[in-house]
C-alpha cells in the first residue's frame, strides 16, 4: 500500500455524520487502506485522513468523529468544529463537506446537516440505511429532496458498494460546479444579532460560527475563540443574548426548535412515512433484550456463549499453529549446530514468541465477537442494561463500553473512555479498566484451565471456569470504581444519555477491519516487546553456564547419555543461572501463593507484558528439553514437582493453578496500559497508582485463593 502524494490541486472534503450512520464504513470504502491517523496536540480523538483518485482527480478526505451536533463542549469536540471551519492551523479549510445521514431517521440526522449548511461550504448529502428505511415503510423521493436542497443527494449502501461511484462522481463534479445549500431559517431577531457577531469575526467567520456563539450556553467556544483569534467577542455576544431574551426567546432551545421546524417543512413533501406507527423489528427485539429481567438473562447468556466459543473454536487453530512452530523448530535444530546460538533461536525466540503467537486465533475470535456485538447494535443495549448497575458504583452506562472493550485489550478500553464527559467518571473508569480480563490474560487461563481443570470434568466446565475468570474482572472493576468514586474521586456523576442504534446485520468489512487491526498489533507486539523480553529471559537463564566449580554445563550434558543425569544437570544449571538466583531469593514471597521459584520468576518476567508468561514458563520448565508445542508444556506443568525434585510433591494442584490465574486476573502487568494511562491523564501519578493498587490486590487475592483452596480442595 503506497501513499499517494497529492498534487497541488487536490480537492479536500470533510466527512461528517451522526454516530451509527455507517460513516466509518463509507470512509473505508472510499479510501481503501490508503489512510492514516492525523495528529493534533492537546486532544485525544483520532482523526483519520485518506485519499482516493477518481476521474483523474485526487480527493482528500478528513474523517470527523461522529457527532449529533457541531456544538463543542470539550477540547475534542472543538477540534472537529475547527477542522470543519478551517480554524485549525494544521489543516487548510476543506473545499466541501460530505454529510452522511441515516435515511431511516432522516429528520434527526439532518440536524447536523443544517449546521453544515451554514458554514459557507458546498455540501453533498449521502443517505445511508435506505434499505432499513424502506423496510420500515419509509419512502424518500431523493430527486425531490435534492432539488429542494439544491445540493446532490446520493443514496448509498457502502458495504455493498452501492451508490459509491455515484457519490464519487458527485464529489468530483463539485470541483467545477459548486452546489451551495440553502440557509436554514431563524427568527428575524436571531438573524439580526447573528449578523452583528459575524461582523466581528472577520474573514474567519461564518453564519454557523456566529450563531453558535449566540446560542452557546456555557461560553466554552467563545473563550477558545477569543484566545485563539485574539478577538473580543464577549460584549457583543452578551448584548445579542440580552436582546433575544428581552423578546421572550429561550436561548437554550431556540436553535434546536428552529432547525427542526425548518427540517420538517423541507422534508415533509419528499418523504412518505407509514400512517400508523408500525412496531418495527428493533422495537420487538428490544422488548426482550432491554427488559429488566429477560434482558439481563440474555446478556449473561451471550457473554457465556462468547467465552465458550472462544475455547471450542480456537482449539483446532491453535493446534495448527503449534504444529507449525514445531516444524520450524525441528528444521532449525537439524540445520544449525548445537550451541548457544541454536539455543537462543530455538529455546529463546521461537519458544517464547511462538508460545504467544499460538494465541492469535483467540484474539481473532474475541475481537470478532466484540465487533459483531458492536456493529449489530447490541453493545449499546448492554450499556443501557448496565447503567443501573454502574450507577450504583457512581458511574454511568457509558463506562460500560470501555470496560467491555478492555476484555479485548485495556489500551483501546482506556482510549474508549473519551466518550465520558465527566472528568471524575472518566478517571475512575480508566483506573479500573485494566482489571477487566484482557486477551493477554487468555493464554494463562487457557493453559492452566487446560492443564488442571479439564480432564475429569464435563465438556462445559473449561468454558465455565473461563467465564468465572472473566467474572473476576467484571465484579472487581465496579467495586473498585465504587471505592474510588466515594473516596478520591468524590462527586456527582454526569447523566447517562445515549442513542440505541437500530439492529442490523453486522458488516463484514467493519468486523474484518477490526480483527485485522487487532491481529496486526498483536503480532507486532509479539515481534518487538515480547521478542526482546524473551531473549532477555533466555539470556539470564542461560548465563552463567559454568558452575561454581568451573564445570561447563552444556558440555557436561552433551557428554552424558543418561537421561536422569542430564535432567539433574539441567536443574542445577537453571538454579544457578542469574534468573535462578533471583527466583530463589524471592521464593519466600511467592511460596504462600503456592508457587515455587520458577513460577515466581515467570511472573516477575511478565510485568512488562503479561502474555510473556506462557513463553517464560516454556523456557523455565523446558530449556533444553523438547517443549515444542502447547500440549507438551501442558503435560510438563501437570507433571512438574516442587523444585524439579521427583521426591517432592507435585507443584501444581488446583489451588495453586487457581491462585496463579487469580493473580494474573488482577495484576497490572502491562507496560502499554501504563503508558496509555499516562498519555490520557497527563501525569505519572495515575499509572503509578494503578500499578500499586492492582499489584497489591492481586497478591492478596492470590494468597486468599490458595490458602482457602487448600482447606477445601
Amino acid at each position, binding site marked *: 500500500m503506497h501513499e499517494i502524494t497529492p498534487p497541488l490541486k487536490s480537492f479536500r472534503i470533510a466527512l461528517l455524520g451522526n454516530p451509527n450512520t455507517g460513516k466509518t464504513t463509507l470512509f473505508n470504502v472510499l479510501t481503501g487502506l490508503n489512510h492514516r491517523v492525523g495528529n493534533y496536540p492537546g486532544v485525544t480523538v483520532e482523526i483519520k485522513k485518506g485519499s482516493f483518485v477518481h476521474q483523474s482527480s485526487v480527493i482528500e478526505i478528513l474523517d470527523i468523529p461522529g457527532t449529533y451536533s457541531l456544538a463543542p463542549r470539550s477540547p475534542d469536540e472543538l477540534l472537529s468544529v475547527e477542522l470543519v471551519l478551517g480554524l485549525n492551523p494544521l489543516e487548510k479549510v476543506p473545499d466541501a463537506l460530505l454529510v452522511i445521514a441515516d435515511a431511516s431517521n432522516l429528520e434527526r440526522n439532518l440536524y447536523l446537516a443544517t449546521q453544515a449548511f451554514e458554514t459557507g461550504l458546498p455540501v453533498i448529502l449521502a443517505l445511508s440505511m435506505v434499505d432499513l428505511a424502506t423496510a420500515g415503510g419509509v419512502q424518500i423521493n431523493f430527486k425531490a429532496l435534492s432539488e429542494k436542497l439544491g445540493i446532490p443527494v446520493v443514496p448509498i449502501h457502502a458495504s455493498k458498494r452501492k451508490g459509491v461511484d455515484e457519490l464519487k462522481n458527485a464529489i468530483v463534479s463539485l470541483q467545477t460546479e459548486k452546489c451551495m445549500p440553502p440557509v436554514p431559517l431563524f427568527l428575524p431577531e436571531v438573524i439580526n444579532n447573528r449578523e452583528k457577531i459575524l461582523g466581528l469575526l472577520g474573514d474567519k467567520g461564518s453564519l454557523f460560527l456566529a450563531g453558535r456563539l449566540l446560542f452557546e450556553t456555557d461560553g466554552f467556544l467563545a473563550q477558545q475563540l477569543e484566545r485563539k483569534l485574539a478577538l473580543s467577542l464577549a460584549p457583543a455576544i452578551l448584548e445579542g443574548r440580552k436582546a433575544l431574551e428581552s423578546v421572550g426567546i429561550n436561548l437554550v*432551545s431556540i436553535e*434546536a426548535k428552529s432547525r427542526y421546524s425548518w427540517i420538517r417543512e423541507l422534508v415533509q413533501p419528499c418523504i412518505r412515512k407509514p400512517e400508523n406507527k408500525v412496531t418495527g423489528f428493533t*422495537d420487538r427485539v428490544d422488548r426482550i433484550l432491554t427488559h429488566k429481567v429477560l434482558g439481563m438473562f440474555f446478556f449473561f447468556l451471550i457473554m457465556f456463549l462468547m467465552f465458550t466459543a472462544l475455547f471450542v473454536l480456537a482449539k483446532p487453530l491453535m493446534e495448527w499453529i503449534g504444529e507449525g512452530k514445531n516444524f520450524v523448530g525441528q528444521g532449525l535444530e537439524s540445520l544449525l549446530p548445537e550451541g548457544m546460538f541454536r539455543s537462543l533461536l530455538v529455546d529463546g525466540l521461537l519458544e517464547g514468541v511462538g508460545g504467544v503467537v499460538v494465541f492469535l486465533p483467540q484474539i481473532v475470535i474475541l475481537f470478532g465477537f466484540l465487533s459483531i456485538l458492536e456493529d449489530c447494535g447490541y453493545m449499546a443495549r448492554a450499556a*443501557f442494561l448496565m447503567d443501573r448497575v454502574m450507577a450504583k458504583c457512581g458511574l454511568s452506562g457509558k463506562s460500560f463500553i470501555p470496560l467491555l472493550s478492555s476484555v479485548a485489550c485495556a489500551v483501546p478500553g482506556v482510549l474508549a473512555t473519551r466518550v465520558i464527559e465527566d472528568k471524575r467518571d472518566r478517571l475512575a473508569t480508566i483506573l479500573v479498566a485494566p482489571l477487566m480480563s484482557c486477551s493477554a490474560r487468555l493464554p494463562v487461563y487457557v493453559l492452566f484451565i487446560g492443564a488442571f481443570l479439564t480432564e475429569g470434568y464435563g465438556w462445559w466446565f473449561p468454558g465455565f471456569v473461563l467465564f468465572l475468570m472473566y467474572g473476576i474482572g467484571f465484579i472487581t472493576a465496579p467495586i473498585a470504581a465504587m471505592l474510588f468514586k466515594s473516596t478520591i474521586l468524590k462527586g456527582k456523576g454526569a447523566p*447517562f444519555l445515549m*442513542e440505541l442504534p437500530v439492529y442490523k446485520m453486522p458488516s463484514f468489512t467493519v468486523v474484518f477491519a477490526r480483527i485485522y487491526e487487532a491481529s496486526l498489533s498483536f503480532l507486532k507486539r509479539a515481534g518487538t516487546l515480547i521478542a526482546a523480553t524473551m531473549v532477555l529471559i533466555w539470556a539470564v537463564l542461560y548465563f552463567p553456564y559454568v558452575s561454581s566449580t568451573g564445570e561447563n554445563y552444556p558440555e557436561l550434558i552433551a557428554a552424558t547419555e543418561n537421561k536422569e543425569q542430564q535432567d539433574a544437570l539441567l536443574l542445577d544449571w537453571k538454579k544457578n543461572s542469574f534468573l535462578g538466583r533471583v527466583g530463589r531469593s524471592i521464593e519466600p514471597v511467592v511460596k504462600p501463593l503456592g508457587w515455587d521459584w520458577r513460577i515466581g520468576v515467570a511472573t516477575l518476567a511478565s510485568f512488562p507484558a503479561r502474555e510473556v508468561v506462557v513463553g517464560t514458563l516454556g523456557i523455565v520448565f523446558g530449556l533444553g528439553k523438547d517443549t515444542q508445542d502447547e500440549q507438551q508444556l501442558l503435560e510438563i506443568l501437570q507433571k512438574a514437582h516442587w523444585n524439579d525434585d521427583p521426591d517432592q510433591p507435585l507443584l501444581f494442584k488446583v489451588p495453586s493453578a487457581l491462585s496463579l490465574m487469580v493473580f494474573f486476573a488482577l495484576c497490572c502487568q502491562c507496560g502499554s496500559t501504563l503508558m496509555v494511562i499516562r498519555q490520557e491523564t497527563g501525569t505519572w501519578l495515575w499509572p503509578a497508582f494503578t500499578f500499586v493498587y492492582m499489584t497489591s490486590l492481586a497478591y492478596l487475592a492470590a494468597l486468599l485463593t490458595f490458602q482457602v483452596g487448600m482447606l477445601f480442595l
Partner: protein
Amino acid sequence: MNDIPLTMLESGEWAEVTNVSGNPNIVSRLSELGVMNGCKLCMLQQGQTCLLKIGESRLSLGCLYSDCTIMVRPVI
C-alpha cells in the same frame, strides 16, 4: 393540566413533552436529539434508566441522575 414527570410514565405509554428544564448544557444536548417542548415520545422501558422512542430514534436516559427535569402530558 395533568403534567407528570417523565419518570412516572409507564412502559408503552405515549406522551408529549411540555417542559424541559435544568442544567442548560444538558437541556440543549437533549434538544439536539429532539427532546424538547412539543415533541412526542413513547416510554419503551421504564426505570431508573429509561428507554424512550422519539421520532425514529431510541434514546436511553439515566432519569434519576440527570440534573434536569422533563415534564410530559400523557396522550392516548
